[in-house]
């Protein structure tokens, strides 16, 4: 009698033990799967995400394809003009012109928008416009596909910085190492509706600036002129 009870107890303990073990094991397996699930991987994207991803790769492919065709045709041209220095010079000049344009060493023209920002005249408590505000605005314009940007005629190039200088007699903003003063006029060349819609509307940075209490105006212009970088682009360390 006593023995039987003991036996039953042991069996029960073992069964429960096994059950617990299995349950815990399953839980750990689940944890692992959750951990391994990478939310940026394609397997886990939803339809809308997949559509943007597809559009993204498609446009990348098309850009690359176009550039590839341009490059191969340039190679052919070089091959054909090898004998003539004059013809070669034309090709080299063309390529150099292209490079200088991307560097910001040429004056450019095209459709785009002009944004004017200033502090409100009779605002006492509102803050000042800081370099940070202009930095974010420029970043937003680049994200919307701006091809050339300037702040108060200072061309934004790859090495441009936008910083606050805090002096004894107040602070000011410096772009490319040169002082700029309000009103700040930011010009951008690109697709007008992309540029504009990136700034206004829900979450747009211009709306945010307006809420902060700054006076912001956007003007569309079919012929915006942006001057070249007015310094020398020097490098010393890159090889």
């Amino acid at each position, binding site marked *: 009698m006593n023995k039987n009870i003991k036996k039953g107890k042991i069996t029960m303990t073992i069964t429960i033990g096994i059950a617990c073990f299995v349950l815990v094991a399953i839980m750990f397996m689940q944890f692992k799967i959750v951990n391994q699930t990478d939310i940026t991987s394609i397997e*886990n994207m939803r339809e809308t995400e997949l559509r943007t991803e597809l559009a993204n790769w498609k446009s990348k492919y098309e850009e690359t394809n176009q550039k590839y065709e341009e490059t191969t045709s340039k190679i052919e041209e070089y091959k054909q003009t090898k004998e003539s220095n004059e013809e070669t010079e034309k090709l080299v000049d063309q390529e150099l012109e292209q490079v200088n344009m991307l560097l910001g060493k040429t004056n450019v023209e095209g459709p785009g928008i002009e944004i004017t920002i200033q502090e409100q005249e009779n605002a006492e408590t509102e803050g000042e416009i800081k370099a940070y505000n202009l930095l974010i605005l420029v970043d937003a314009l680049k994200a919307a596909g701006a091809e050339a940007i300037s702040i108060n005629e200072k061309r934004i190039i790859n090495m441009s910085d936008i910083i606050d200088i805090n002096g004894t007699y107040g602070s000011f903003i410096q772009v490319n190492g040169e002082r700029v003063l309000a009103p700040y006029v930011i010009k951008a060349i690109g697709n007008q509706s992309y540029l504009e819609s990136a700034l206004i509307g829900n979450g747009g940075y211009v709306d945010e600036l307006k809420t902060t209490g700054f006076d912001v105006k956007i003007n569309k212009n079919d012929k915006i002129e942006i001057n070249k970088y007015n310094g020398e682009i020097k490098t010393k360390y890159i090889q």
Partner: protein
Amino acid sequence: MQNKKIISIVLGIMCFLLTLGIFVQIRTVNSTNTTVSQNYEENNLRADVLKYKERYENKYKDLEKAEAELEKERQDSTQNNTELEQKENEIKQGNKIIGLAEVTGPGVIITLSDSKRDASTALDISSLLVHDKDVLSVVNELKNAGAEAISVNDQRIVPTSSILCGGNIVNINGEKVGSPFVIKAIGLPEQLAGLERPGGYLYWLEEATIEVDVKKSNNITIPKYTGVISYEYAKSVE
């Protein structure tokens, strides 16, 4: 008898909790993991994405080959003329500044990672994370300190690069990058490392318990931009 009852109840509760845990987990897995997608359309889209990605990658390899060939061809064509040779050098140097060519040189490597501090002890959890604006500000300060080439997680900063928030990740050049952010910059190392000065941006990130690491190096390689910069709207004028 009393003892047995207690044991049974305890065991019952334990089993119930474990089972509950498993169900919660299964539900989470189901809602995040759509590998076993029931949706025909999504599967098609997924296949299309992969197809275009592959096509792009192949085309990009072709383009790289063609660009190398073009450079050789240009060099061959210009080598017997000093004036042309100089222009050829200008093109090469220009491409390095724009970000269309790989560059090496001395500089710094700055690593920013999300705070390791327990989120429940923070007043503002958001301050424990590295944001797009932080990366943007550090890149801007590096430019101010004279950086000649910069990359963030191997995404080269080119004239058209933007650094934007995309939810829990950051978009740079349209590519997704996340913490830790490894920012490489070429320039005078001492000057670039000056970003750590008290009151500088990195100082404030450190104050917010973001992990900041600055390493000087004499030999940094920054990859070229893996995309195409082509202007559609801007035209050069005299």
